[in-house]
């Protein structure tokens, strides 16, 4: 192995440091008492304290962070399950059953992938309002179900699966649904995992939908809760950062475990077209 540092690697080291440093600072600062945050003297907390976390845990009416955590977990998990189910069924049909008009549906989905999601915000709000879903988790879950990205990703994978596998199953008298369930899904586990993690992350970090589609504090997800909570604690950075850490830790853990899949999902859209 080449152990020599090249000039280019210095750039990489610097970028990696700048990438990680703010996150580490946030975590360290969340263990500082307020006095130390306001008067910055050292990176490490001099008198490390759990006071910020204790304050948040002790005041659930003031800062219902556990409630937001629960909402975030519930919403993101539901969106993930929904997307994986809906798009794998659709992609299977488009790749293999090829119903009449399938091409049109596929092209239309791809075209809509290019439409900036935010222009849908106002009409989506009105539709959700008519359905009576505003300020309920449904408003944060169902609109994300029709993921064109998911169809696109899985369609490409299903196309690459050798047909012999299904034909063997069909000869054995398997119905389409059973082929989908017993043949297609098991061999697509890696790509399904990529999709699931990617969708989970996107949903976890979604800021605009919960901001617009929820009104009451107990319906917020973490990103909105943390951002709005901050406005009432503008100068108490220790507290704010403790809340930020709670919001970020689950994602960082996921990223630490599944970094390969997440980064693969990131480039999946780019390489296929």
């Amino acid at each position, binding site marked *: 192995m080449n152990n020599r540092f090249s000039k*280019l*690697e210095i*750039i*990489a080291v610097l*970028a*990696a*440091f*700048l*990438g*990680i440093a*703010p*996150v580490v*600072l946030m975590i360290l600062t969340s263990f500082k008492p307020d006095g130390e945050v*306001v*008067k*910055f003297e050292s990176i490490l907390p001099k008198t490390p304290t759990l006071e910020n976390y204790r304050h948040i845990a002790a005041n659930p009416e003031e800062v219902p962070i556990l409630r937001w955590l629960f909402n975030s977990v519930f919403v993101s998990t539901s969106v993930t399950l929904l997307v994986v189910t*809906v798009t794998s*069924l*659709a992609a299977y*049909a488009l790749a293999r*059953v*090829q*119903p009449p008009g*399938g091409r049109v549906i596929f092209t*239309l*989905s791809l075209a*809509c992938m290019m*439409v*900036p999601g*935010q222009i*849908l*915000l*106002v*009409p989506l709000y*009105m539709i959700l309002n008519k359905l009576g879903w505003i300020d309920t988790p449904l408003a944060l879950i169902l609109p*994300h*179900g*029709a993921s*064109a990205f998911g169809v696109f990703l899985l369609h490409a994978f299903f196309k690459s699966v050798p047909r012999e596998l299904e034909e063997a199953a069909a000869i054995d008298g398997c119905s*389409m649904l059973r082929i989908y369930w017993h043949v297609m899904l098991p061999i697509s586990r890696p790509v399904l995992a990529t999709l699931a993690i990617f969708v989970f*992350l996107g949903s976890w*970090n979604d*800021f*605009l939908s919960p901001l*617009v589609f929820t009104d009451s504090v107990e319906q917020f997800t973490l*990103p909105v809760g*943390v*951002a709005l909570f*901050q406005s009432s604690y503008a100068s108490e*950075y220790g507290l*704010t*950062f403790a809340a930020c850490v709670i919001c970020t830790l689950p*994602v*960082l853990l996921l990223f630490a475990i599944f*970094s390969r899949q997440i*980064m693969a999902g*990131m*480039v999946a859209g*780019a*390489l296929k077209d």
Partner: protein
Amino acid sequence: MIRRRWAGYLFLLPYLTLFGAFLLGPLIYGLVLSFMQYDMLSPEPAKFIGMENYSEALGDAYFWKSLRATTLFVVMSVPITIPLALLLAVAVEAVNGKRQMFYRIAIFAPSVVSVSVVSLIWRWFYNKEFGLLNALLAPLGVEPIGWLNTPLTAMTGIVVMTLWWTIGGPMLVLLAGLKQIPAQYYEAAAIDGAVGWRAFARITLPLLRPALLFSLVMNLIGAFQVFGQPFILTGGGPELGTRVAMQYIYQTAFQFYRLGYGAAMSWLLFLVIAVFAAFQFRMMRER
């Protein structure tokens, strides 16, 4: 066999339902809405008013100001993001094995953090009285600077923060593009004496064009829709200098409940994005 193919629609049904209800439906509904007066707070019923929302937007100084702020953000961020992402991709690609994986993870890590957390961290960095930046500058004898107190420095602050947050995505896309270039090309070029910069200009850049185009267009579309960062970091201030189009649309539609007008401005923003994206496609194709 025919029956079998029609049965495909059973598999497509959930997708088509959601697609129609929450994507295609709102897209068309939004267009209809943009031609209507629909104020949730007024007792008047919604009514069709033709192009009035659009002509109001074109004469609305605040809308223009918000478009200017958005454009400033795009012009400041996109031309830095893509070249820097390319530089990082090249730097990371030059390293092998485990270290490369580490750099990729470290540079992409900020992208998995939510926009509100990102903005709150940087809000502390930029704070005038007890922010990190001023604390680091103080030993050098620099007076505390109000980074977010003038429109231009505030926008710069938003751009730098966004760069930190989003550089990982295009970096990964370009890195994947670099990895697809066969090593033989470089070997052949080296025999002809093309190494270093010349190999980069003659082989890397042309072959990377699809990946560059993709990251450029995606970055541009994203930048025009910027919302969360200024919304949390500056709230659109000072002097509305960082109130971008999406924030103005958000306030019009969801604080003043003028939904028809909000929908019309959304379509105008979409139009601007489409024009810029098409323009970039052409430029990259022709060269």
